């Protein structure tokens, strides 16, 4: 029953999120998703506290529900980031499938199809929109928020033994 309740709550959040996006797509999608999903969770917990006899869940049950719901919400937010913007890796796979009748494709053909510069420009624009970077005399600089996140990733790369700079 607890599993079913949690999955139902996630489904309700997903429906609300789709309705919100269809009516007016938010500029800061991650924050909007957090508000949408955790808003539903908070309302559900309030309901369970105000009307405990409806479901008869203990504090332990509610804690389990919060953990499961949070874990699934994180997964959805991660998946959503790939839904929102075309992943170059998936674009390559799609193009290779399309070219399979011609026996594949070479490097030049892939370069022409992918327009990787455009992908980088799109990400620069989206980071400006999200307040991570700002332009000053044609030069991009990290904002306070951007510096904070860049430092987290920089330190974590050292701590978790991730070599290279990514991309």
């Amino acid at each position: 029953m607890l599993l079913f309740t949690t999955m139902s709550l996630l489904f309700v959040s997903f429906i609300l999120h789709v309705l919100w996006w269809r009516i007016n797509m938010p500029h800061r999608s991650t924050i909007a998703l957090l508000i949408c999903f955790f808003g539903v969770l908070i309302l559900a917990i309030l309901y369970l506290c105000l009307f405990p006899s409806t479901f008869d869940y203990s504090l332990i049950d509610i804690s389990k529900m919060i953990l499961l719901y949070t874990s699934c919400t994180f997964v959805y937010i991660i998946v959503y980031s790939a839904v929102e913007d075309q992943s170059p890796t998936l674009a390559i796979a799609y193009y290779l499938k399309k070219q399979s009748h011609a026996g594949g494709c070479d490097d030049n053909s892939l370069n022409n199809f992918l327009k990787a510069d455009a992908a980088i420009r799109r990400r620069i624009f989206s980071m400006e929109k999200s307040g991570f970077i700002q332009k000053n005399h044609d030069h991009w600089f990290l904002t306070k928020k951007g510096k904070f996140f860049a430092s987290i990733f920089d330190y974590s790369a050292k701590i978790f033994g991730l070599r290279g700079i990514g991309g």
Partner: protein
Amino acid sequence: MQNPWLITLLPILTLSINVISQLFVVHLTRRIGLSITTGLITGFIVNVIVFFTVSTNFENTCIDLISYIGFSFSYWTFLNLNITALRIRVLRELLKENKTGLTTETILQRYSSKELINRRLDRLKQWGHIIKKDGQWILQSNKLLFLMFVMLLLRHIIFGKEKTRKLLA
């Protein structure tokens, strides 16, 4: 006597075991892929062992395992962002050049289209998704196409047909 809080907090405890194992293996072997897999499996095994020695409730097993898999996937994505994400790459490039900043052109020069494509082709080749035969790239696995299909389906549901077409353009 069962401790109900142990079962409740099991996904967090096993996630910690996952992270500790990953850190231990990566600093010991310098192999990222191996360390991530070891961490994931260790956490999973501990989850299953603890669960079967403490309780036998099927619903609790499902809740704990789904929660653990969800948290582990988030952790794996966090690690993966450092390796593959374009945005993180740009952020870290800008962190290196914090005082002078970078123009769009310099960013594009530092991370050229060619590099972007080559890195992805290398990774796809390493994972066995594609092969190069007589100078031609050929798709070997349908896993990526399945993922692409799921993404397209979600785009259609969330954004509708029109917006999806604009996004893909």
